[in-house]
């Protein structure tokens, strides 16, 4: 690798040619603060927090985008640099709603941390005219509060460049500049897909999910209600982060213990329904292959992806699996099979889901998601909301014992837990589909070709005399690329997995936020995914069709995958939507 020699704060070091000053400084163990910079996504050098002095340069330069050159001398913390950063922060604060005490991001706000680190001792230094914005409550899943927005544009960059949606962006100019939708529509009036990636990258409290924690507490305190919780696979790989555990720590046992102590009547696992999804989806796939059905079959677990497909590819709705998502299947089975078995009135069950996802809040409001005549799921909260509930009741999360899920809907397999990462649904489906087709046990259940954080992964498997072409995409821009290949006839896939968020649910819009300096330097998607693959590898049962509780469900209640009853309870329909409303 070609290197250049630079001097950073007097320390000489060789760094790869083409590095930015920010990257070079990191190699010298100096973390230059940033605000607007998101590697590969938002490289606009606009916020001026990362400025440094370069010897010979006319003015301070933005280190996030300024490339190093041989012999360059850089000062990252000279008095001039520090005073410039402080002034920039004071100017940002002059038009910022400083209600930090009650802010949802208090404690993990990147702006707050910078102000503290840079000793901004007078937040009213440039007090003057302020913008005042109405909050946007129009979407089902989130709130936009422009009074807390610092115009870094991380949200709009992710929305447009990563998710190919682009419903938020900068409007007007100068002091009036604000991040909003076209013609100041509410987010809920646009083709927003509810993925929440904008929330995941927001440095402040300008973007956050609609909080349903009070609804959950109200249900828990209602003696008439039987409150059941289900937790998605990816939650256990990230819930430890708000409590200070390293990224990628599996906290399944403590999570279950915390939910029990919060007062849920039953603590179940969405993984059970992931296994059930595989039974239905593998059956649907084999049926389509054998009976000339619509191919490629595309997975339907990710509600952000589903909404994207409805808005942007309405002509491909027939390719979508009709399977409800695991969240919804879980609610459906709880309020039919489980209610019947336990003699519970479905009307009195409150089904709460904990999801790494904001689109799940939208999904529970969809039509055709009420198997028992009542909504399959009543309240969907994010991983972040669960962390806040745990903090609110004073549970010492780190000291909790490891506990197990309740039976029978807490039983699951290794195939189910990898649903939380890109490629996981495909791998789980392959484990079951291949064994069903060949009627032989797989020597090794790992399908390594579909693992990893690449945006698009493809593989061909030879199964029972047939070549099965599969593809996996995560992040909606990657999904678009893949779908265009399919539409143009360039690619011929039989089965496609798509997850709305880059890296899949482990990097979902409802997961704990990690600050930009972490997101820019480590791949949180891969680290959290590893936690799930490790769980999979450690489990005695790793194939969905071997889940004893699922087998019993079919024997006692559903008969067989794809049965009439299964279709009634576990499958759904989609609607055609448009991109623009006029």
């Amino acid at each position, binding site marked *: 690798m070609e290197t250049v020699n630079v001097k950073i704060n007097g320390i000489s070091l060789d760094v790869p040619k083409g590095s930015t000053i920010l990257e070079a400084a990191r190699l010298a163990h100096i973390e230059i603060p940033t605000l607007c910079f998101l590697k590969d996504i938002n490289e606009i050098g606009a916020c001026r927090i990362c400025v440094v002095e370069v010897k010979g340069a006319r003015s301070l330069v933005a280190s996030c985008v300024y490339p190093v050159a041989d012999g360059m001398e850089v000062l990252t913390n000279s008095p001039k640099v520090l005073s410039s950063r402080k002034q920039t922060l004071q100017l940002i604060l002059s038009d910022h709603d400083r209600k930090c005490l009650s802010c949802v991001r208090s404690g993990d706000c990147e702006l707050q941390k910078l102000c503290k680190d840079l000793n901004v001792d007078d937040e009213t230094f440039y007090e003057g005219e302020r913008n005042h914005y109405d909050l946007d409550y129009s979407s089902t899943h989130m709130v936009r509060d422009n009074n807390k927005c610092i115009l870094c544009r991380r949200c709009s960059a992710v929305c447009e460049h990563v998710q190919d949606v*682009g419903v938020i962006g900068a409007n007007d100019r100068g002091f009036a500049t604000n991040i909003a939708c*076209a013609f100041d529509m509410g987010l809920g*009036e646009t083709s927003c897909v509810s993925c929440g990636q904008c929330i995941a990258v927001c440095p402040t409290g300008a973007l956050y999910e609609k909080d349903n924690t009070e609804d959950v507490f109200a249900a828990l305190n209602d003696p008439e209600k039987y409150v059941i919780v289900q937790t998605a696979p990816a939650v256990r790989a990230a819930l430890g982060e708000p409590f200070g555990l390293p990224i990628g720590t599996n906290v399944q046992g403590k999570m279950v213990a915390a939910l029990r102590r919060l007062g849920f009547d039953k603590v179940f696992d969405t993984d059970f329904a992931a296994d059930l999804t595989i039974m239905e989806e593998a059956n649907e796939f084999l049926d389509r292959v054998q009976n000339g059905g619509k191919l490629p079959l595309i997975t339907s677990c990710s509600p952000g992806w589903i909404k994207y497909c409805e808005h942007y590819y309405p002509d491909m709705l027939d390719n979508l699996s009709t399977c409800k998502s695991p969240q919804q299947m879980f609610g459906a089975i709880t309020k039919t099979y489980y209610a019947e078995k336990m003699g519970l009135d479905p009307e009195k069950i409150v089904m709460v889901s904990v999801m790494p996802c904001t689109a799940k809040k939208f999904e529970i409001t969809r039509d055709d998601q009420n198997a028992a005549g009542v909504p399959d799921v009543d309240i969907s909260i994010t991983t972040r909301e669960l962390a806040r509930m745990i903090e609110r009741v004073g549970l010492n999360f780190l000291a909790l014992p490891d506990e197990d899920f309740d039976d029978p809907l807490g039983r699951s397999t290794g195939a189910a837990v990898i649903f939380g990462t890109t490629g996981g649904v495909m791998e789980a489906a392959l484990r079951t589909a291949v064994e069903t087709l060949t009627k032989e046990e797989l020597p090794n259940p790992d399908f390594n070709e579909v693992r990893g954080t690449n945006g698009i992964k493809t593989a061909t498997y030879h199964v029972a005399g047939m070549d099965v072409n599969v593809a996996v995409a995560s992040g909606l821009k990657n999904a678009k690329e893949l779908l265009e290949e399919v539409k143009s006839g360039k690619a011929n896939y039989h089965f496609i997995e798509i997850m709305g968020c880059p890296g899949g649910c482990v990097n979902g819009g409802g997961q704990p936020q990690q600050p930009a300096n972490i997101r820019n330097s480590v791949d949180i998607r891969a680290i959290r995914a590893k936690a799930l693959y490790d769980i999979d590898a450690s489990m005695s049962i790793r194939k969905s069709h071997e889940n004893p509780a699922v087998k019993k469900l079919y024997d006692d209640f559903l008969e067989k995958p794809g049965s009439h009853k299964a279709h009634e309870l576990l499958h759904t329909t989609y609607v055609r939507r448009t991109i623009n409303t006029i």
Partner: protein
Amino acid sequence: MGIKQKTVPFTGTRQQHDDLLKVISKHKDDKGALMPIMQEAQEIYGYLPIEVQTIISNELEIPLEKIYGIATFYSQFSLSPKGKYIISVCLGTACYVKGAGDISNKLKELLGIDDGECTPDGKFSIESCRCIGACGLAPVITVNDDVYGKITVDDVEGILAKYE
């Protein structure tokens, strides 16, 4: 929330629509096609309402928000049509100190529209301008080619009445 700048109903014609599609197909494959298309669209329609921006968005497969962001960034783009009578209120220094701000407010109040907008009947639009070089007559407004100088807030209603 809700769509703003919707004071005048859209009355685009078939001809205008065809002209716009021609412009779009002419520039479609160019790098940076959006700006020239928006400029020519404004020449065709006189302004860029949501209907026109939506056509551009659909044809170019560019998010509507991106187009709206550009339309609101550059002052040369207008989201409202011009009225039959274009009222320019000089907000240059001399007029401003002589009370042009109050006159502008009175006009907005009487017509029920904001700066840059057009009345729903398409009759009046207001745009503020900087010095028109008639500082001796401050404060000054013009209605199309008619110039009104040394006016007071009380004169505004009478001036509008001339164009009823």
